[in-house]
């Protein structure tokens, strides 16, 4: 139960908290579980922060505490993964702090003990609206990125089934539809996060993009991505190629693959897109969705698939739906079955306290009553310990 105190902390302004930890680490070795009870009230900073910035070392003692990710890492690991409000908060506070919570620790435990010879296990993170599913996913992604896995992170599958401005008929398969804009954005972000892998992985097949352009067998995968970015018309097909190659080559064992999909219920729901003759497009008819569905099936090994259900962006689903079989539908549930469900719920007492202290520390809660006990009880009541709600309320204060 030694808390590994990293004396050299990456963030500059947090040095004093780090030194404090270093000095009194011995006092906490004895009882690391109920830390907030033992720590005196004059130093609340230490309750909600931990200096452990490597998710691999997060354990139960860090539960409820915030760990921060250096901004440089954020740009590389999360070019497109974090929720919008969290990004705004990052910009305001000039740091990105994630809370270590039990579901995330559970998930990390499973990931640490994966057997790469077995088919990829699917994890489905579900929960009520605003409880922290996307943040749990981001925690897992950060862990895998630190462990040098290849991260295939689709920030929100719902974006692919709605509000598409350009819907072109696919050149590869006449029945399917392409989405060049979404595909190219995703490819760009994919490139930022996994640059070094793209140089190492080689294609195992020749791909013809058009009469004059083709990618030979044995070329690095980065070329396929470049092709998709330059020729936007072929972007969706480039995405399909990338997914196919990764799926084929992952079992060979040269790299580990993490498929992280947020809002996976979009793949089996309905779309709001329409064809030229005003008839509805079903998800199978979209190239991106079709390829992603193949990716999520567990017929490959050497990695893991972590997905989130999301009602927020979903189409034609009632607001109160949050269980897997409600949001996925029969088809989706059958495809994803068997999976390991991980439920995320509202903050516990300790987590709420930690979040509240964090906001106070960053001077986010400006109202004079917010720092009093009554203000805390009021916030607790009004948000009912729901993280999303609490964040929205604190934004007003």
């Amino acid at each position, binding site marked *: 139960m030694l808390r590994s105190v990293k004396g050299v902390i990456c963030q500059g302004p947090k040095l004093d908290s780090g030194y404090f930890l270093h000095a009194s680490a011995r006092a906490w070795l004895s009882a690391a579980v109920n830390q907030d009870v033992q720590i005196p009230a004059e130093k609340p900073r230490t309750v909600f922060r931990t200096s452990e910035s490597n998710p691999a070392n997060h354990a139960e003692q860090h539960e409820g505490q915030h760990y921060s990710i250096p901004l440089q890492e954020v740009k590389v690991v999360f070019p497109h993964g974090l929720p919008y409000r969290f990004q705004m908060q990052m910009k305001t506070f000039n740091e990105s702090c994630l809370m270590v919570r039990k579901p995330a620790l559970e998930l990390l435990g499973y990931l640490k003990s994966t057997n790469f010879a077995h088919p990829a296990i699917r994890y489905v993170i579900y929960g009520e609206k605003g409880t922290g599913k996307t943040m749990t996913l981001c925690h897992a992604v950060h862990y895998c990125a630190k462990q040098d896995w290849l991260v295939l992170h689709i920030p929100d599958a719902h974006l692919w089934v709605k509000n598409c401005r350009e819907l072109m008929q696919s050149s590869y398969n006449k029945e399917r539809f392409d989405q060049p804009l979404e595909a190219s954005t995703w490819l760009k972000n994919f490139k930022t996060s996994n640059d070094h892998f793209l140089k190492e992985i080689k294609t195992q097949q020749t791909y013809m993009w058009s009469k004059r352009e083709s990618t030979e067998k044995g070329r690095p995968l980065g070329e396929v991505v470049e092709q998709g970015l330059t020729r936007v018309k072929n972007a969706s097909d480039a995405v399909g190629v990338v997914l196919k190659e990764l799926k084929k080559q992952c079992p060979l064992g040269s790299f580990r693959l993490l498929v992280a999909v947020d809002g996976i219920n979009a793949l089996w729901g309905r779309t709001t897109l329409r064809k030229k003759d005003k008839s509805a497009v079903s998800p199978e008819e979209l190239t991106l969705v079709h390829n992603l569905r193949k990716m999520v099936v567990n017929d490959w090994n050497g990695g893991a698939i972590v997905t989130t259900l999301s009602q927020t962006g979903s189409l034609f689903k009632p607001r*109160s739906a949050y269980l897997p079989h409600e949001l996925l539908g029969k088809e989706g549930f059958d495809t994803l079955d068997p999976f390991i469900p991980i439920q995320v719920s509202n903050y516990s007492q300790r987590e709420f306290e930690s979040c509240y202290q964090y906001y106070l520390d960053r001077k986010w809660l400006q109202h004079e009553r917010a720092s009093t006990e*009554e203000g805390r009880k*009021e916030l607790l*009541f*009004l948000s*009912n310990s729901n993280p999303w709600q609490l964040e929205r309320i604190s934004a007003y204060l």
Partner: protein
Amino acid sequence: MGCPCVVLNTLRLIYTTTAVQKRNVAALGPEKYTEAFIKNQIEEFNLGKRHLANMMGEDPETFTQEDIDKAIVYLFPSGLFEKRARPVMKHPTEIFPKQRAIQWGEDHRPFHFLFYTGKQSFYSLMHEIYGKLLDIQKYQDHLRAQGLLAENRKQINLIGSRWLIKEELEDMLVEKLTDHDYSTCIQLLERLVTLPCCGIEEEYVLKFRKELAIQLKKMVIESLQYDEQGVAFSTGEGKRKTSQATAVVYDNGSGKITVNGVDYLCYFPVMQDREQLMFPFQFLDRLGIHDMVCTVSGGGRSSQAGAIRLASARALCSFITENEVEFLRQAGLLTPDPRIRERKKPGQEGARRKFTWKKR
């Protein structure tokens, strides 16, 4: 001798108009009820009361006004919305307005010395009050001369009562007053009350004071009930607009609230509604102490929140002291909101909105 009279008569005949002179009703004033008439009405009322008691099968001797009202409502059911338009049977003194008897005698000289002021009872009242004031001052001088002033201070207790309002004073005097008159009267009474020895005239002054009904006594506070585990709970009901809510507040809780089986965060996504729910608990500083389970039906989201608020405040009354109940009442948490949707009127688009006015 007959000739000039005949001429005069014929002259008079010519000047009278042929049209019948109509009686000018308005100039006579409101109809005056004679004393005999009122007495007649009272006898008829009493007889009618006994008949009614017989009809209803009750004892005529112990037939009160409330019984009469109930009987009338039973015998003459009315669908009219205006309560004052429904059939009513009351004592004639309540129905016929109080009128003054003729103020002058057979020789047409008025009885009262202030008759020609126009407001004789008002001025006589002022005169009387001032007389009393002078009496008190004389008494005070008397005591001061004896040196007993310090011990004999008698003040009138004015707490829990208020001065009569202008309408009530008008009823008492059977005379119209202006606002200025009323304010001068009240000022004189206030001046009388400030004197140290005004206790002598206490009963006279109290004639002009009206007791304020203490509303708290009307509310019945239920005692706590205990369920199987021994946890104390209490129920309350509340209404607002068209919503009705029942709330059960449990002790030893953690601030969990369930509405119609759903968590309150899901049922009321709007923060305004949740603030309404929070109000009674926060006012009593009991936010994380109680659990609540409520059911609500009807109305919209805002009215449902208001109904639950009232229900929870009423339920909380069982857990707190009397003073705190008084605080709740003063804060307005125990008052049901009387506002309802106003009816749409014909000729208008809505309750208040008129149709667009076109000049031509």
